């Protein structure tokens, strides 16, 4: 079916790009279970690196999962009502506010982390606590939750649905719980998966905010890349892939689903 030279060229570029992105991930997966990567697969396959990574870094992995869940709770509590309020009162002020909370998407994490350190770095209890990292993660993931929910709310005729509920005697908070939240669920789900995926993988902010006692998964990864043998670094990367890839696929599925509902 790909007869024309132009099509073949396009196919070649696509396959090359795929190879560029996929080959190192496969290498890393393979290296993580190979006895000696330098000698190649012929040296035999083993789980010993993965077990070693678990012994060294399981704390980081659990810290990241815990942080991601805490981050999810925060973005739900802050983001969902805010998305509703912004969707319900569209206007210059709402757009400006949305633009402002989206700044962490545009400004490099490094700059944000510096800003947080400048203001709160001197407050020792906070600086040393895991909540300091949590603040960074919420800052970075919140716009995704807000926008994901807002885009679903913008697609349904929220105003009329709410008027319908009001004419049936529902006060504001009941309208929010009975009408807004259930109808925004696809957006909330897509937003939630995005928040968890991004939080588990966040490095730029976290690297600046972490303490020697609070290393998240990506911080541990950087640590292993710098100081461990290639097999351990690869095994750790493999564990990370095993966590992040299903999340990413779920996130893409949920986002596509939310968009289908919107159209």
């Amino acid at each position, binding site marked *: 079916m790909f007869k024309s030279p132009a099509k073949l060229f*396009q196919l070649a570029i696509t396959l090359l790009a795929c190879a560029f992105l996929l080959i190192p991930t496969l290498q890393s997966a393979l290296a993580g279970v190979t006895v000696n990567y330098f000698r190649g697969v012929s040296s035999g396959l083993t789980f010993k690196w993965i077990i070693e990574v678990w012994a060294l870094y399981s704390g980081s992995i659990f810290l990241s999962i815990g942080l991601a869940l805490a981050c999810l709770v925060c973005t739900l509590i802050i983001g969902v009502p805010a998305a*509703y309020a912004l969707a319900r009162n569209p206007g210059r002020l709402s757009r400006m506010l949305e633009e402002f909370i989206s700044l962490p998407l*545009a*400004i490099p994490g*490094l700059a944000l982390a510096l800003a947080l350190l400048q203001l709160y770095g001197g407050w020792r209890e906070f600086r040393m606590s895991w909540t300091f990292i949590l603040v960074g993660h919420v*800052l970075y993931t919140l716009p995704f939750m807000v926008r994901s929910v807002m885009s679903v709310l913008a697609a349904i005729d929220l105003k009329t649905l709410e008027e319908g509920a009001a004419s049936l005697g529902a006060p504001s908070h009941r309208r929010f719980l009975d009408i807004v939240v259930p109808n925004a669920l696809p957006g909330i789900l897509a937003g939630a998966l995005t928040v968890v995926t991004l939080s588990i993988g966040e490095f*730029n902010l976290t690297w600046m905010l972490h303490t020697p006692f609070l290393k998240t998964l*990506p911080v541990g990864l950087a640590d292993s890349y710098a100081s461990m043998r290639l097999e351990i670094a690869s095994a750790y990367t493999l564990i990370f892939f095993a966590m992040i890839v299903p999340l990413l696929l779920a996130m893409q599925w949920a986002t596509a689903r939310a968009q289908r509902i919107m159209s």
Partner: protein
Amino acid sequence: MTSRTFAQLCLLPLAIFTLTFLALPLARLILASGEGEFGWGIYLKILQTPRYYATLLQTVIISVAVTIAALGISTTAGLFLVRNRFMGRGVLLSILTLPLAFPGVVVGFMIILLGGRQGLVNQILPGHWVFAYSAFGLFLGYLYFSIPRVLLTVMAAAEKIDPALEEAALTLGAPSHRVVLDVILPALAPAMIAAGAIAFATAMGAFGTAFTLATNIDVLPMVIYTEFTLSANIAMAAALSVVLGVITWVLLLIARSFSGATIAAGG
């Protein structure tokens, strides 16, 4: 409680959080940049100090190269994937979007696996093919996470192009390469500008990849990091952060005005 009061109540948590952890810290950062020995002249100092402006220039050059390469590759692949249905298309699409969730450090490691001392290329080809720690390695790393971002933006726009436009051009006698030039690329232009701005801004601000590759090439985020941690030159780190933040923010604002895409500038 009126619905107006309720809406204001809904915004309250966001307002408190954003004020405390975004507005005030950013204000502090800007103030901090003016508290050094040069005062507000520090921004002029960036342009007068060869090390800083050379870094700025170098970061811009690498980012421009990455943007052009990512646009070329992703537009070609994206158009191909949108306009052809075949077995395995879904798999290719998944592979091409996978790195979206990879932190910059992992991308850096991927480049080490490709072009490091024990890297694939060095194993296959005779001689010393170690490029992971050079400017080319950095370029490849940035390209690695830019391809998916550009691809998604371009594909979203390509799917919205009315196939009738292309058919109309063909019925009018245009050969297929003219159709691409006259119909498809103009229709994709806004998305490509947006995707380019996203790729450029992401490359400008990327820290994790440069950090892992521990390259000899100075890029702006690495200089900010070393100013802050090694030299404890807080004012300069803050000033460079402000400059970097303003550049990426303005670029993404341009991107948004062209396509409304929401893709994080991480990496």
